[in-house]
């Protein structure tokens, strides 16, 4: 992750000239004076504040992680690494982790990108259905999604295998395998790629594609030579996100990998956390971070000059849809099939289970035992309504906080000329490589020895800090491309016309960035509601959240009540997302 990630020749922001009078002062007293006046400058103040906030959020947990890993009994020690890696089956674990992460990232990438392209750039049928399909897995928390897929495709009692046993007399898919884990993780994180790529395809100047076609290029050549290179920053960003997410995913390895002993890094970290060996958990996390950082460096090299990707320019443009022609029918069928497979079936199996007295395989006899008892149980639960309220406050709160912070941080990184702005970019990325469980351990340690003047531990604020830290990298991945795609010439024109920094922001940058920022906001709202791994170590009485409630019920083995929460949660999130998109449509967030 270097400065070059967005701006390889360092010239990206050079076109906005600072007013020359500042540089006219004398060389000595002038420098101090400049420094002093710049402090009073709203722009500088804002930027400094953002650097402090981002730095604080990113560094505190990480510093703790490194301290806990390398310092033992007050001295430097590598003993935690010995404890972490000294067990039989370590190579199998490393191998599984890699296959799992690469496999699910590729699957997610292929699915998400194809869906996004078809949804945004073609005249496919069922377009809104397609958008819904792409987003539903995102709405279902990982824990529930894994449970739903177990119910669907467990070899002995899964619904899909029940059907296949009737038709071809044998089960067709066993979820308890590396392939099963990749399928569940891959389809679960594909929406992330979809959101990313949809934003990129939408903001692309279609005249470039049209030119290619006019010049006689085939559709395929156009895709290969024009479309794909144009969205490369979004490509690399998306791959990076899903690969890191897959490698630090916790719920799916725990639920699907464990029964058949497929261990990955995170299952081992969880094991160490459960044995209270945070040093060993840290040692494993440090390695995960290294792998992620190497990946990020590799991807940064793949990116080109950010300015070359700016396709939102002063020219008017309107993305045009491509006519699918004869492929329209078959593609519509694929869309429909995909919708049933990844959205309808998991949801229906949860609905079915939520009405049962106890979890059982599909049978018509079971319908006789249907009741609302699980829903009644839920509303009887002491903490259910409290958790709903907390989850909503936290997800709306952290999404808003993050998008404000990363909106400014993105400007600093892409347009700013401050020395060390690359460090800001790296800081916003850092929390992503800290697994959620470890983030939880770290934050509870830090805020039990509170560095701030307010009580944080044992309040809802510690969760707010955890979410704001954990999801800052995702917000940043939305904010940066949405700014990269806006050509500086718009701001340059405004500047020449005498607009101030704030006016440029308010009238040009923010309105153009809003679709990207809003997409990021929606994404963070959804992921915050699902967040489990760090909440697990940070919640306190009366500060429970929905994901915790699901986890508690799952831990008790009440899969029927878990399904009831799942059904309610999915319905609620569908309402929230629909409202957000409806409102968003007015300010430029397009879904079709």
């Amino acid at each position, binding site marked *: 992750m270097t400065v070059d990630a967005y701006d390889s020749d360092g010239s990206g922001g050079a076109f906005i000239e600072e007013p020359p009078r500042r540089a006219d002062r004398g060389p000595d007293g002038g420098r101090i004076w400049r420094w002093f006046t710049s402090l009073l400058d709203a722009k500088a103040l804002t930027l400094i504040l953002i650097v402090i906030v981002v730095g604080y959020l990113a560094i505190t947990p990480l510093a703790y992680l490194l301290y806990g890993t390398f310092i033992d009994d007050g001295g430097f020690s590598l003993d935690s690494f010995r404890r972490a890696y000294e067990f039989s089956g370590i190579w199998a674990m490393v191998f599984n982790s890699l296959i799992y992460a690469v496999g699910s990232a590729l699957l997610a990438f292929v699915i998400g990108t194809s869906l996004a392209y078809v949804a945004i750039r073609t005249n496919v049928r069922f377009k809104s259905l397609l958008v819904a399909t792409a987003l539903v897995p995102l709405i279902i928390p990982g824990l529930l999604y894994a449970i739903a897929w177990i119910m669907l495709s467990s070899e*002995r009692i899964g619904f899909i295998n029940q059907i296949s046993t009737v038709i071809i007399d044998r089960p067709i898919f066993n979820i*308890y395998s590396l392939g099963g884990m990749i399928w569940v993780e891959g389809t679960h994180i594909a929406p992330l790629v979809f959101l990313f790529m949809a934003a990129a395809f939408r903001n692309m100047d279609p005249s470039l594609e049209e030119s290619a076609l006019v010049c006689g290029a085939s559709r395929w050549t156009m895709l290969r030579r024009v479309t794909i290179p144009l969205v490369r920053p979004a490509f690399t960003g998306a791959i990076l996100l899903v690969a890191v997410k897959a490698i630090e995913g916790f719920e799916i390895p725990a639920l699907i990998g464990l*029964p058949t002993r497929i261990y990955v890094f995170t299952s081992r970290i969880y094991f160490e956390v459960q044995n209270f060996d*945070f040093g060993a958990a840290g040692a494993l996390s440090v390695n995960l971070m290294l792998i992620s950082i190497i990946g990020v460096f590799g991807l940064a090299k793949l990116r080109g000059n950010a300015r070359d990707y700016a396709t939102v320019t002063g020219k008017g443009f309107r993305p045009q849809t491509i006519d699918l022609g004869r492929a329209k029918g078959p593609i519509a069928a694929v869309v429909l099939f995909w919708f049933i497979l990844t959205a309808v079936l998991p949801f229906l199996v949860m609905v079915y289970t939520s009405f049962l007295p106890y*979890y059982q395989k599909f049978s018509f006899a079971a319908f006789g035992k249907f009741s609302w008892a699980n829903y009644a149980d839920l509303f009887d639960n002491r903490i259910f309504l409290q958790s709903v309220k907390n989850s909503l406050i936290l997800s709306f709160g952290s999404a808003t906080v993050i998008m404000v912070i990363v909106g400014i941080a993105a400007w600093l990184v892409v347009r700013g000329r401050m020395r060390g702005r690359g460090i800001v970019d790296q800081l916003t990325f850092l929390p992503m490589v800290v697994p959620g469980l470890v983030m939880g351990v770290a934050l509870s340690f830090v805020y*039990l020895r509170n560095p701030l003047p307010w009580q944080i531990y*044992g309040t809802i604020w510690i969760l707010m800090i955890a979410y704001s830290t954990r999801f800052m990298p995702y917000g940043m991945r939305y904010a940066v491309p949405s700014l990269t795609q806006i050509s500086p010439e718009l701001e340059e024109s405004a500047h020449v016309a005498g607009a101030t920094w704030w006016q440029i922001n308010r009238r040009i940058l923010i309105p153009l960035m809003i679709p990207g920022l809003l997409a990021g906001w929606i994404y963070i709202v959804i992921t915050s509601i699902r967040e489990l791994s760090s909440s697990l170590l940070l919640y306190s009485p009366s500060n429970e959240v929905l994901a915790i409630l699901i986890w508690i019920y799952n831990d008790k*083995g009440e899969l029927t009540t878990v399904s009831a929460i799942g059904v309610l949660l999915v319905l609620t999130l569908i309402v929230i997302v629909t409202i957000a998109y409806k409102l968003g449509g007015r300010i430029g967030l397009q879904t079709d």
Partner: protein
Amino acid sequence: MLVLSLIAAACASDGDPVDTTAAPGGGQQTTTTAGGGGEETTTTAGGGEETTTTAAADRGTAADAFDGFNAMTGQARTDALIAAAQEEGSVTFYTASSGMDPVIEAFEDTYDVNVDVFAGTSDTVLQRIMQEYEAGFYGIDVFDDAEAYTIAREGLTHEYINPELTKDIPGYDPATHVAATRLSVYTQAWNSDLVDESEIPDSLDGFTDPKWDGRLSMDPRDWVWYIGVRDFYMQDKGWTEEQVDEMFATLSAYSRYDRGHTVQAQLLLAGEFDASLTVYTQSVDREIERDAEAPIHWRKSDGGWIEPLVFFPQGVTLLKNAPHPAAAMLFTDFLLTEGIRILSQEDRTPTSISFPDGPLDGIPKEDLHQVDFDLFFDRDTWATRFDELLRGS
């Protein structure tokens, strides 16, 4: 890693027991069995060693309040507790039990004192308390769990004296600071749609028959069950350590892994596997309570069961720096009377003081085998050993 080293020290202190309880009877040979109905195992909690901390340093901020109430009995105690608890307004209760909701509601209804509950798994709750005390954050008042014994050993608790209630708890020892409330009884269960009862063996080792290959499930974290079973086979059956380990290796090779005892009961009920090696009796009984036709059993039609029934007591303890000492004490009194009755009747959880018609009806006390406390406290050794045993299989 301060927390870590603290816990590691606690776990590794097998050969060097440090009694920080400084309670009456500390430093003497004491019976630490607090479990009810079980065979009584005499172990050395104090080990006859000097206590390493002075009473003054050990006294928490709530010590005076606790001592005041500990000295009282009968209605006078209850009245004083109610008055003071209502003044305090609330009590913070940490637990890993899944059936506490009705108990808490009954307490709130009876005394008009609010209960803030922190519910999690045993491991997370223990970790939470250790970390909070380590950092000087004192939010918790009462704790009910198997790990209550662990935090008492760490010197985080205050003694609880109320002979009117504790005299009925088998093996109760005030020096442990823990009054047993519930028993976690490990057993094996089967799905009667998939297995005929005649196939079910009389003891755990019967599952090593190759016909069970691929039909079983176990929880890979149940090292506590492992040490209990190990003791039973070595002491009561005269097996060697190798024989026991071989049995576990075979059982594990025949099993898939699923975390959690209730999860196991639910998946067993759904037909995901034929039999589960590591469930709690209440996980099965609760399903039967909910639906009498549920095809899941741990007792045979003649009332028999699969040997051995291994158990570990769960107990309640008072935190020495409790911010609400009166409410904490009132809650503990309530838990040991009405609380365990509710747990036994509504949640089918075996309790330290058994009730007629309770979940373990008809099982003689000598057939319930308690897990050795000394081994339990040596978590590091045994958890790792169990893990390696499973990995080797």
